C-alpha cells in the first residue's frame, strides 16, 4: 500500500520554554500554536501522512529507550498514525508547560528510533522529524557523528523551529528592518548553551544537505505566518489523451489537462437528528399525488416521465429517450475552422474551466506538429474553433483553442463558447446619448484621478511591474472560513463560532497603500456626484397586482390555492411577502390584516396536509420578533391563533394544553403551536 510520508513532531515543553519577555507570547505558546496549526491542516486536507508526537522536558518519562538515568523526561505522546481530532484535542488540552529539562539530542534519538521501529516493513516516500525548541538545555556533542550517520542511513530529514531567526552570522548588524518586532536578535541575547546548540544544529543540517540544509530552519513567527492558511487540497491532474484533427487526414496526438476550474467544496453537509446526531435517524421521503381535490397518492410504479413542449406535455419513456437522443462518436477535438482572435469575445466564454492542450507525452513529432499550429495561430492572431467532446456520454461543445506561448513551454488553451440557445440579446438604453446622465468635464476628471490613485499595478524604475492584489494568490475564503469554523467547533463543541480570522479579512480588503492614496480623490467623487437613494414605493403596487385590485390578501390567497393555477409553494411565497409588507407598517390595523393572512395560511396548510411552509415561516417570523420590535404584534397573533384553535373541533383538549403550556406574556413558544399543528395534521391523515 502507498504511504506518502511519516513525520515526528518533537516539541520542547521544558521549563525554559515558558519564559517570555513581558507582553510577548512564551516560546511554549508559539510552539504549541505551530503544532496545532500544522495538525489542523493535516486533518482538513485529509492527507495520508502519518504523524507522531514526542515531548521532551516533561515531568514524567515514557519512551522505549529509557534505561536508568538515560533518556529521561521524554514522552512519546502519540505513535505514528494519521492525524485526527483526537490528536488536536490532546494538543489543546493535555500539552502544558512542564518543569523539567531534557537534552534535545536525546529527544532526537528517541524520534529516530520511533521512526525506524514504526515504519519497518512499510514503504514511505519521506521520513521527517520536526524539532521545536529554544535550545536552552546543555547537550553533549559526543555522539553527534553517529547520529548524523544514522540519519543519513535511514534517509531521515530534519526541520528545526526556533524562537529566533537563524541568519545572524551572515547578516551581522541589520537586525532591525529585516525582522518584525518581537524578535530577539539571535547573536546577542543567546546563552552559551544556545550558541553551542546552534552550532551543533548547523553541523547536523549542513552534513545532511550541504547546500540547502539551513533552509529547513525556521523561526516560530515565520512558520506561523506560513501555516495560517489551510492547505489547499491537491487534485492530481488527470490527463485527457485525444487527437486534434484538421480535416480528414491531419491528426495530432494531444493530451489535455484542466488548468483552471472552479474548485468546489469537497464535502457536503449531511443532515442529522438534532438529538441523536445520527444521519440514519433522518429520512426524507418524496411522495407523488394527483392534482385533484383528494390529492390521491400515486405509487412510484405508476409514474412515467414526460417532457414539456411548450404547453403540451409529451410522454416520453426513458427507453425511447435513450434511443432517440443525440448520439455522437465520442471523444473528440476537431477543428471546425480558424477565426480572428478578436471575434471571440472574452465575456462570452462559457463553462467552468480552461484546458491546457499539449502534445502527447514522448511524441516528438506530435510536439512539432502542435508547435507549428500554436505558432501559426499566434503569428496570425487567430484561434481554432473546435468541436470538443470529453467522451461518448458527455455532450459535445463548441469552443476556442487559443495559442499560449510562455518562456519555457507552449500549449493551446481551450475554453467553451456559447451555443445560440445560451445567448440573451439584451438591449440597454444608451448612456452616451442620454443627456440626463452625461457626466461633465469636472466629473470626468474626478473619476480620472480616482482611477490613477487606485492603480493596483505599478511599474518600478526598472520597468518591472508589481501587482499589489493578485487574486489568484488568495486562498478561497470560503474554504478557509469553513475549516476554521469546523476546527473551532470540533475542539470547542459548545462555544459559538469564532469571528473571521484577521489575516483572511485583510487579504480580501483593498490594500492599505491604495486606501491611503485614494482618500482625497474619493472625497472629490463624493462632492461631484450626488447619489440619492430613491424611496421605494414599488412593492405595494406589485402586491396589489398580485392579489387583484381590492386588497384582501387572505381571501385572494385562498382563491389562488383553490384554483391551483400556481404551485402551493409559490402562492405561499406571495402571501408571506405580502405579510412582510404589512408588518413593515407598525400599526394595529396592518397587524390585524397580517394575522388574518396567517390564519388563512394555517387553515389552507392544514387542509392540504402540507404544514412545512407554514411552520418554517412561523419559525422564522418568531425568531425575527425581537430584532424587528414586533412584540405587540406577536402577542396579538398568539391571542388570535388560540381563539382560532378553540374553534377547531378535532383536538380541543390538546389545544387547551397548548394554551396552558404557553406562559402568558412570553414572546416565544410558537414552537408549541407549531408542534400542535402537526399533530392536528397527522390526526386528520389518520382518520
Amino acid at each position, binding site marked *: 500500500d502507498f504511504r506518502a510520508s511519516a513525520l515526528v513532531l518533537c516539541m520542547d515543553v521544558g521549563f525554559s520554554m515558558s519564559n517570555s519577555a513581558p507582553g510577548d507570547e512564551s516560546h511554549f505558546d508559539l510552539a504549541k500554536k505551530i503544532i496545532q496549526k500544522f495538525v489542523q491542516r493535516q486533518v482538513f486536507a*485529509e492527507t495520508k501522512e502519518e504523524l507522531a508526537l514526542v515531548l521532551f522536558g516533561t515531568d514524567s518519562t515514557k519512551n522505549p529507550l529509557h534505561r536508568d538515568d538515560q533518556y529521561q523526561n521524554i514522552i512519546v505522546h502519540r505513535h505514528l498514525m494519521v*492525524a485526527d*481530532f483526537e490528536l488536536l484535542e490532546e494538543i489543546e488540552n493535555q500539552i502544558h508547560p512542564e518543569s523539567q529539562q531534557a537534552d534535545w539530542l536525546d529527544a532526537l534519538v528517541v524520534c529516530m528510533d520511533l521512526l525506524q521501529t514504526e515504519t519497518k516493513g512499510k514503504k514511505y516516500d519521506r521520513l521527517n522529524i520536526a524539532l521545536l525548541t529554544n535550545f536552552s538545555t546543555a547537550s553533549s556533542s559526543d555522539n553527534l557523528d553517529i547520529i548524523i550517520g544514522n540519519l543519513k542511513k535511514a534517509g531521515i530529514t530534519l526541520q528545526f523551529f526556533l524562537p529566533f531567526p537563524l541568519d545572524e552570522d551572515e547578516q551581522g548588524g541589520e537586525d532591525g528592518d529585516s525582522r518584525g518586532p518581537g524578535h530577539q536578535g539571535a547573536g546577542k541575547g543567546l546563552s552559551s548553551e544556545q550558541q553551542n546548540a546552534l552550532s551543533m544544529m548547523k553541523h547536523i543540517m549542513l552534513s545532511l544537505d550541504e547546500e540547502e540544509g539551513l533552509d529547513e530552519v525556521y523561526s516560530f513567527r515565520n512558520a506561523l505566518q506560513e501555516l495560517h492558511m489551510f492547505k489547499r487540497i491537491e487534485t492530481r491532474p488527470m490527463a485527457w489523451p485525444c487527437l486534434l484533427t484538421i*480535416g480528414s487526414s491531419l491528426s*495530432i496526438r494531444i493530451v489535455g489537462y*484542466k488548468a*483552471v*476550474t*472552479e474548485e468546489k467544496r469537497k464535502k*457536503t453537509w449531511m443532515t*442529522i437528528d438534532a*438529538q441523536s*446526531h445520527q444521519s440514519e435517524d*433522518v*429520512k426524507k421521503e418524496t411522495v407523488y399525488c*394527483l392534482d385533484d381535490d383528494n390529492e390521491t397518492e*400515486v405509487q412510484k410504479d405508476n409514474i412515467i*416521465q*414526460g417532457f414539456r*413542449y411548450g404547453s403540451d406535455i*409529451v*410522454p416520453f419513456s*426513458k427507453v425511447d*429517450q435513450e434511443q432517440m437522443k*443525440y448520439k455522437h462518436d465520442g471523444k473528440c477535438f476537431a477543428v471546425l475552422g480558424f477565426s480572428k482572435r478578436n*471575434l471571440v469575445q472574452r465575456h462570452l466564454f462559457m*463553462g*467552468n474551466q480552461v484546458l491546457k492542450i*499539449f502534445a502527447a507525452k514522448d*511524441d*516528438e513529432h506530435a510536439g*512539432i506538429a502542435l508547435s507549428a*499550429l500554436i*505558432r501559426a495561430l499566434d*503569428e496570425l492572431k*487567430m484561434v481554432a474553433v473546435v468541436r470538443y467532446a470529453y467522451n461518448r456520454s458527455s*455532450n459535445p461543445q463548441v469552443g476556442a483553442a487559443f495559442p499560449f506561448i510562455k518562456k519555457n513551454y507552449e*500549449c493551446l488553451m481551450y475554453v467553451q463558447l456559447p*451555443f445560440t*440557445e445560451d*445567448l440573451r440579446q439584451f*438591449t*440597454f438604453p444608451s448612456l452616451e446619448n*442620454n443627456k440626463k446622465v452625461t*457626466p461633465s468635464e469636472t466629473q470626468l476628471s474626478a473619476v480620472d484621478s480616482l*482611477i490613477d490613485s*487606485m492603480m*493596483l499595478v505599478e511599474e518600478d524604475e526598472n520597468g518591472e511591474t508589481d501587482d499589489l*492584489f493578485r487574486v489568484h494568490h488568495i*486562498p478561497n475564503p470560503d474554504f478557509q472560513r469553513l475549516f476554521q469554523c469546523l476546527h473551532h*467547533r470540533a475542539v470547542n*463543541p459548545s462555544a459559538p463560532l469564532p469571528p473571521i480570522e484577521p489575516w483572511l479579512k485583510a487579504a*480580501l480588503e*483593498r490594500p492599505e497603500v491604495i486606501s491611503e492614496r*485614494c482618500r482625497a480623490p474619493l472625497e472629490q*467623487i463624493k462632492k461631484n456626484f450626488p*447619489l440619492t437613494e430613491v424611496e421605494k414605493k414599488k412593492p405595494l403596487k406589485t402586491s396589489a397586482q*398580485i392579489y387583484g385590485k381590492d386588497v384582501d390578501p387572505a381571501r385572494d390567497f385562498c382563491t389562488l390555492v383553490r*384554483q391551483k393555477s400556481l404551485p402551493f409553494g409559490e402562492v405561499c411565497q406571495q402571501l408571506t411577502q405580502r405579510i412582510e409588507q404589512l408588518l413593515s407598517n407598525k400599526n394595529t390595523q396592518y397587524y390585524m390584516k397580517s394575522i388574518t393572512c396567517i390564519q388563512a395560511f394555517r387553515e389552507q396548510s392544514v387542509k392540504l396536509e402540507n404544514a412545512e411552509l407554514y411552520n*418554517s415561516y412561523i419559525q422564522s417570523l418568531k425568531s425575527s420578533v425581537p430584532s424587528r420590535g414586533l412584540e405587540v404584534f406577536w402577542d396579538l397573533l398568539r391571542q388570535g391563533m388560540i381563539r382560532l384553535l378553540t374553534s377547531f373541533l378535532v383536538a380541543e383538549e390538546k389545544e387547551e394544553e397548548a394554551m396552558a403550556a404557553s406562559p402568558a406574556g412570553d414572546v416565544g413558544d410558537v414552537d408549541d403551536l407549531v408542534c400542535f399543528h402537526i399533530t392536528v395534521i397527522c390526526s386528520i391523515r389518520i382518520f
Partner: protein
Amino acid sequence: MAEWNAFYHNEDEDEEQEEGEQTSGDYKVTGRDSLVFLVDASKEMFIKGEDGELSNFDMTMQVVRSVYTTKIISSYRDLIALVFYGTEQSKNPRNSFKHVYVYHDLDEPGATRVRDLDALLGDKGEKLAAETMGSGETSLGDALWCCANLYSDIKYRLSHKRLMIFTCRDDPHGGNSTKDRQAHTKARDLKETGVMIDLMHLMKPGGFDVSLYFRDIVSPAEDESELGLQLKPCDKLDDLRKRVLAKEQKKRSLARIKLILDEGINMAVGLYATAVTARKPGAVKLYRETNEQVRSKTRTFQTQTGSLLLPSEIKKAQVYGKKKIVMERDEVDAIKKFDDPGLYLIGFKPMEKLKLHHHIRPAIFLYPEDDQVKGSACLFSALLKKCSEKNVFAVCRCTPRRNIPPRFVALVPQKEEVDDGKVQTKPPGFNVIFLPYADDIRNLDIPHCPIASPIQVNKMKEIVSKLRFKYRSDAFENPVIQQHYRNLEALALDMVAPEETDDLIMPKVEQMDIRLGPLIDEFKNMVYPFNYNPDVKPAAKRKTDDGGGSEKKPKVEVSEEELKNHMKNGTIGKLTVPLLKDACKQFGIRVAGSKKQELIDALVAHLGS
C-alpha cells in the same frame, strides 16, 4: 430529480450547482411575459420582391415562427398571440371587431400552434391566408382594441406586456382622420395599462415614413434617444429576426446590488446574465393511466419514531479526522457570510493584466439602476468612459446575494455598439469576469515542448488561412437540445420521424479537405516520419527496453546533401533524435543539450542553410 439527471449528465466537471450559488439566469419570476404579434394582412404585405425575394408577410411569418419555437425552448410559460388586421374575414372572441382575425389568442405556445404557423409559410401559406382571412379594410383602432381585450381574459398575472405591429404601410387608413384618431386613443389606452407597443416596419417602395403616422402609436424608447424611430425599415429576414429578438427578450436582472466605491459612495447596479448554458429541461412525472402531471411532496421524518421533523429538530454535520462536527442550520449559512451583498471596489488594473485563461464561469453584465439610487447612471457612465479610455478594468469583491462567500471580479468596460441598421449589438456597461482564487488554479507538470521551425510554422499558416471563417457567437446551435426538441415535436405532432437536425458543430470534413488540397500532405511530410501514424500509440519504445541494449541498432547515416535538402524543405524535424545526434557526431559538432531543437539548431548553424 436524480433519475433524469443521470440521463443528461454532462461531464463530471460542470454539473454540480453549489447550493444555488450559480448565477442561473432565472430570477424569481413574479408573473409571465406576454407578446402579441399584430400583423398587417393587407394586399401590400403579400407583394413579392423582384428576383423572388420573400414577401413581407412571408418574412414576418418566418420570424413569428422562430419566436414561437424559441419561446418553447427558453420560456414556454410566456404567452403569445397572433392577430391579423386588414383582413376580409373576422374572427375574434365576440366577433365585435370587423377585419380583425385572431389567429392565436394569448396562450402558451405549443406544438399545434407551430404547425398552424407552418401552414402560413411560403406560397401555400399565402394561399391559405387568402382563403381563410383575405385582405380587406383596415382599422388599426379596432385591432388594438381587440388586442386589449385579449389581455383582460387572461387569468395569469402578467409581468411584461409587449405588442409588436408588423406592417409595410406607413399610412394605414389612407388619411381617414377618424380612424387615425381612434387608433391613437386605443394605443394610448394600451400603453397606459403597461403595454409596450413596438413597430416592426417593413420595406415598401418609396420608403417607410414613421413620422407620418406611427410615431404616436409606438411607445417611446427607454432612453429617449429616439433610436427606435431612426431605424430603417427591414428588408431582410435576418435583420427583422434580430430586431424582433432584441425587443422580445425582457431583461431580468439576477440581482440588484450596490457598487461601492467607498463607504457612502454607493451606486445601484443590476446584474444581468447575458449568456447562460441552456440545458435540456427536466422531465416531468406523469400518472401512467391518464398522462396527467403528478405533484411531489417531500417530508422529513424521524426514522425511529416516524414523526415529522421540524427544522429545529435537524442539524448539519461533516466528518473530518474521524470526528463528526455538528452545526446548527443557521450556522451553516452564517459561515458563508462575509459581506452584505455588494460590489466592493478594490482598485484598477491595466487591461493586459486580465489573463485570458483566468476563467471559471460565464461572465455577467452590469448596468446602472438610476431608479434605485439617483445619480448612479451618471457616475457609472463616467467610470465606464474613463476605464475604457485608460484601458483599465476595475477589480471588485463581489457578493451577489446574502450568505454567499465573496468572489473577486474584473469589471471590463464595454462601449455601446450599433450596427448599420442602428440596432444595438453591444450594450454599454461592464462585463463582470469572475477571477479564480489560488485553489482554482491547478499545478501541472509542464511536459517538454519541442518547437517547430519557421518553415513548418509557415506551412501551418497556409492551412490556417485556407480554413478561415468569421466566427459568430450565435452561429452554433446545440445539437443535443435541438435533437431533444425535434423528438418531442415529432411525438407531440404524431410525426413518423423527427426532423433531421443539422449538427452545426460537426467539422465539414470534405469541404475542408477540398479547400486544403495538397497542403495537408505537405505539412505532414515536414513534421511526421514516413511510417508515423498518430492514430495508434507508438509501440516501438517498449522493444528497445526489453532488448536490454544488446540488440542491433541499424546505423542509418544521413548524408550531408540529404540534410541540406531537409533543411531547405523544412522537413528536418522529421528526423529522429538519434539520427540527428549521429549527424552531429559525423560533422564533429558539439551540442550543449540533447533536445531535438538544440540538435537541429546546431546542425543548421554548421551547415549554414
